[in-house]
């Protein structure tokens, strides 16, 4: 019941923003939505495992990712206010209605317990994101939006084929709905070949959303134009949606004989992602694109973690959560950075430490967190991945991962440090920096603090959630 209310109200709110006559109303609406989302999360957490509206279940993974989303809502909305301050009322409203819609759809996708419903919500997110990416109304943003929508829809079509193949594995007269629970009944006597094909389609299809190789390309292009708060969502919560879709199917199939196949494919995709991201980060000239590549790298790690199994499962989920926190805070910071330096181009930026110390601190702390250098919590999950690798004796994968990671670290740290300290290359002078209050970095520091805390202390409820969500896996 609660859920139905939530969907109706939030869609209503999203519509209402379009009609609102002044910004403060919009602000109020957006804030109420955020509060409501948090409320829903709490509700979901309280009666975990319950099913509502037949198509939605408060399954532990959903709750986990929902919690992450809820954590990001407030800051996202707030940074959104700041970012769109100078826009016309119309665009201001469109932005926020799009944002609300996007969050609603993502929440829906998290909680969906049926493949098709999940798929529908994913499709819906694409539309919402398109609106947000196009916010700046420039040639570039148009291009990015077009690409994003086109590739995503292709991906979605492919994913749908995957779902259809899932459909094929039913004999006549089986349970006619595609909920995961009913799947798990019949999965055992399914033709492995079908499962394999289905998995490939789903993986490739949803890799657009998850930002994993091979369809990672669009998200990266999208990042270079999307408003920073939106990027923060795209490369965290939205990626989690993609991950969730793949993870569901993986969990579903993990009881069958195709497990090892899936693992291999995942590791393959993961290694490719690492490779590509490492290569591009060495070449990156645009700060936000670099961050996008680092998301690609992290998703690659997640895929590898899934593929390695054992502690890898725990690591994957932990990594997903922490990456969301760290990466989003970095992207929020991009908002302030663009207001100080008026550019994301590395060659034109620099001396951030002098111009905006608090921001530089965020950059560096965020860098340490995202690169999984202790005291970043991500180190724990990286550690677990290696643990799994060692106990599986996957020496090649381990070596490759380590080497690529080192290059990633090198590339990212050089760039971030350049922005923070050195002066712009080839004598480019910085434009007159605008004033930004240090207070804006508070939320980012909070998120990063959480990431660092995980390194030393993981709250039991988190551990419990993760353990429950990987309970089905072998």
């Amino acid at each position, binding site marked *: 019941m609660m859920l139905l209310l939530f969907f109706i109200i939030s869609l209503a709110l999203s519509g209402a923003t379009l009609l609102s006559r002044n910004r403060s109303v919009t602000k109020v609406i957006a804030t109420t939505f955020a509060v409501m989302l948090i409320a829903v999360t709490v509700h979901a957490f309280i009666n975990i495992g319950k099913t509502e509206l037949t198509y939605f279940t408060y399954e532990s993974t959903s709750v986990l990712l929902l919690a992450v989303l809820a954590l990001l809502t407030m800051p996202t909305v707030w940074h959104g206010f700041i970012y769109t301050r100078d826009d016309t009322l119309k665009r201001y409203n469109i932005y926020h209605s799009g944002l609300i819609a996007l969050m609603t759809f993502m929440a829906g996708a998290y909680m969906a317990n049926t493949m*098709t419903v999940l*798929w*529908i919500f994913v*499709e819906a997110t694409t*539309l919402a994101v*398109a609106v947000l990416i*196009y916010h700046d109304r420039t*040639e*570039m943003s*148009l*291009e*990015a*939006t*077009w*690409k994003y*929508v*086109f590739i995503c*829809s*292709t991906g*979605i*079509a492919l994913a*749908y*084929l995957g*779902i*259809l193949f899932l*459909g*094929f594995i*039913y*004999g*006549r*007269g*089986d349970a*006619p*709905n*595609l909920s995961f629970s009913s799947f798990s009944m019949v999965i055992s006597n399914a*033709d492995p*070949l*079908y499962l394999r*094909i289905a998995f490939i389609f789903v993986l490739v299809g949803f890799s657009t959303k998850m930002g994993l190789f091979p369809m990672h390309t669009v998200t990266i*292009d999208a990042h*270079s*134009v999307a408003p920073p708060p939106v990027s923060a969502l795209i490369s965290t919560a939205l990626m989690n949606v993609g991950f969730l879709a793949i993870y569901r199917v993986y969990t579903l199939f993990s009881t069958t004989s195709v497990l090892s196949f899936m693992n291999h494919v995942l590791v393959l995709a993961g290694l490719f992602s690492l490779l590509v991201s490492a290569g*591009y980060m060495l*070449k*990156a*000239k*645009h700060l936000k*694109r670099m961050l996008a590549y680092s998301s690609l790298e992290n998703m690659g790690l997640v895929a590898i973690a899934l593929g390695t199994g054992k502690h890898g499962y725990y690591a994957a989920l932990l990594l997903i959560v922490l990456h969301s926190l760290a990466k989003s805070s970095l992207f929020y910071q991009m908002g302030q950075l663009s207001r100080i330096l008026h550019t994301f181009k590395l060659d034109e930026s620099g001396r951030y430490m002098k111009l905006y110390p608090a921001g530089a601190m965020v950059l560096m702390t965020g860098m340490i967190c995202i690169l999984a250098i202790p005291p970043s919590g991500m180190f724990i999950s990286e550690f677990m991945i290696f643990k799994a690798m060692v106990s599986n004796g996957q020496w090649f994968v381990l070596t490759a991962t380590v080497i690529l990671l080192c290059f990633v670290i090198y590339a990212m740290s050089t760039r971030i440090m350049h922005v923070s300290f050195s002066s712009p290359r080839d004598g480019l002078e910085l434009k007159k920096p605008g004033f930004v209050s240090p207070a804006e970095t508070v939320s980012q520091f909070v998120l990063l603090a959480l990431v660092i805390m995980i390194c030393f202390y993981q709250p039991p409820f988190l551990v419990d959630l993760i353990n429950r969500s990987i309970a089905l896996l072998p």
Partner: protein
Amino acid sequence: MVNYLIVLFAITLMYFASAERLSTYIRLVALQGLLLCGIAVFELKEVNLANLLFIVAETLLFKAVVLPYLLSRIIRRSGVTKVHRQAVPGFYLLLFSIAGLLVSVILATILLNPFINPIYLAIALFTLFTGLLLIVTHKLIISHLIGFLVVENAVFLFSLAIGNEMPMLINVGILLDIFVGVLILGFFGLRLKAHTNELTMLKD
């Protein structure tokens, strides 16, 4: 009966490979819409009437009329008629699609499954292949769009293959059409330069 239609469908796919003019593409798309409609009618015996009507209406309306119309408007506006700017010469395209046909037939035989009509599977796979091929080998946005429509037809065919078991899947698949409609309206409303392939401002 169904099989004839499907074969016909396959032939239209072949034409995609060899066609020269965009208008041909559009006609082909429309034709495919009609064919799919027919296939749906003859195939879906076990679904209830309302659902069937919905599906038929959708195919006729969207696939056969709305989308082709929109496309032709765009073409008229952008004023390009020929499918130039191919990355690969048409001849090789043809070869590719023939190879694709063979591959998909083989795949279909491998994937043989008592509940599924193998020819569906084969053609559907072939359709998918052609669609992707169109996207991959053409440079024009418009051709990409058409390629996508083909992919989507493939999806539709697939869903028809098990439509009797779970019509719900078809209905969901239909969402794609609407989605694309929105997409086209949305973007070519925004004066996206349909005739160009200059969408490379964003790259590394």
